[in-house]
């Protein structure tokens, strides 16, 4: 019943909007135009050369690389040092979709390594998955791309260590039995050859002339060559089962991510045309401490569906957001959102989760501020 009322209210809202608001004003027409421009730009610049190879790599990682050993390290079997180190970078292998991050986070917390590596993983996971890395580089520029990776890894370890020091005493409740996920027994060098040549496809396909004019002229030959190499290795080493499993993964991921990205790009093209530039410039322009905080706080509460943080931040930047605040938002944004806060709250309890949220907001703002000064 409640749901029906909600639907009714939505209908009413749409009706009132259509009835009273003249939608064909210049502002709205231009905003629609801007959203299609942005979609066009993404389709031309980012989809073929960047997203599609990245989807194949991400699917291949999920299908060919054994996660069992990573999970073992994460649960503290080899000591804290390795647990932290692995937690800070394993997002690139494990966390292709945000719904795998939270169970893993809860699992690391409860099953061994405890609160430190768990929060480390929760923070860095979404920032360093392969799709997010690649698209940040491509759409936002290499400076922000690199800054995002480095600061995500560094801050995540800092947060983890602070959380562990602060809550060491009551970090005792553990669940002893862990069920390791099913590993793949596929030899690592074979998956290395296949995924490695795919990474080269990605690198050469996105090569721009600024990075080296000589290679730029033959980049399509190089990219094409590595495509052939990938196919060759796949035919040599993958049986039919493995190959369909891989393609299945790629397809599942695409179904999950592409629609979100499509609407994310459209909406962000539209919205940022409507919001007056002056507002954004006042709130998150320049590189003051205040604008960095504004960016990290709003990022922490906002929900970004997988990868949509990138077009949204791009929209902000086109409307006058500074480089520093952009990084602040990229760091705090995917790591936290209102829905994920609720789950973290349930797993960690009030005190710990509030400290964690505060750390994320403060350190993200701080990293953005430093980046804004350096750049």
């Amino acid at each position, binding site marked *: 019943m409640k749901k029906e009322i909600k639907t009714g209210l939505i209908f009413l809202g749409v009706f009132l909007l259509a009835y009273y608001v003249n939608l064909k004003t210049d502002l709205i027409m231009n905003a629609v135009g801007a959203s299609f421009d942005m979609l066009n730009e993404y389709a031309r610049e980012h989809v073929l050369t960047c997203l599609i190879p990245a989807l194949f790599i991400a699917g291949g990682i999920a299908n060919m690389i054994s996660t069992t050993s990573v999970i073992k390290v994460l649960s503290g079997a080899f000591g804290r040092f390795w647990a932290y180190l692995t937690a800070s970078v394993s997002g690139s292998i494990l966390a292709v979709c945000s*719904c795998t991050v939270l*169970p*893993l986070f809860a699992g690391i917390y409860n099953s061994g390594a405890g609160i430190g590596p768990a929060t480390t993983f929760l923070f860095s996971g979404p920032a360093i998955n392969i799709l997010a890395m690649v698209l940040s580089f491509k759409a936002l520029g290499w400076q922000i791309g690199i800054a995002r990776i480095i600061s995500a890894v560094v801050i995540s370890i800092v947060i983890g260590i602070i959380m562990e020091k602060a809550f060491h005493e009551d970090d005792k409740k553990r669940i002893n039995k*862990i069920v390791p996920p099913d590993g793949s027994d596929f030899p690592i060098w074979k998956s290395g050859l296949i995924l490695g040549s795919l990474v080269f496809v990605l690198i050469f396909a996105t090569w721009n002339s600024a990075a080296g004019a000589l290679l730029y002229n033959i980049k399509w030959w190089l990219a094409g060559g590595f495509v052939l190499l990938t196919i060759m290795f796949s035919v040599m080493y993958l049986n039919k089962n493995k190959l369909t499993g891989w393609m299945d993964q790629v397809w*599942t991921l695409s179904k999950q991510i592409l629609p979100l990205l499509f609407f994310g790009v459209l909406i962000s093209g539209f919205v940022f045309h409507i919001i007056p530039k002056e507002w954004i410039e006042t709130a998150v322009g320049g590189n003051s401490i205040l604008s960095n905080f504004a960016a990290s706080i709003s990022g922490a509460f906002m929900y970004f569906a997988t990868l949509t943080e990138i077009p949204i931040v791009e929209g902000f930047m086109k409307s006058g957001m500074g480089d520093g605040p952009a990084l602040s938002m990229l760091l705090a944004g995917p790591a936290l959102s209102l829905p994920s806060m609720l789950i973290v709250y349930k*797993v960690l309890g009030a005190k710990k989760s509030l400290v964690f949220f505060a750390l994320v907001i403060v350190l993200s703002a701080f990293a953005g501020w430093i980046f804004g000064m350096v750049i």
Partner: protein
Amino acid sequence: MKLQILGTGCPKCEKLRMHVEEAVAKLGIDAEIVKISEITEIMSFGVMMTPAFAIDGVVLSSGKINSIPEIIKFIEEKQS
């Protein structure tokens, strides 16, 4: 027999649920299919990666979408 699917509600978990339903239909057995999406409850199983599949509280697989024949095998092993 209680067939449990653990997952927070992402597309992968939904796909596993469909596979389980089809497996049950193929076998023609009388089994209860339960979807568990509460994170604390998932944790109590000791599972670290979702989707995971359990029968009567015993986790048989986690971190992947099982194929229908695999699920049938799990159920048959449990029955015998």
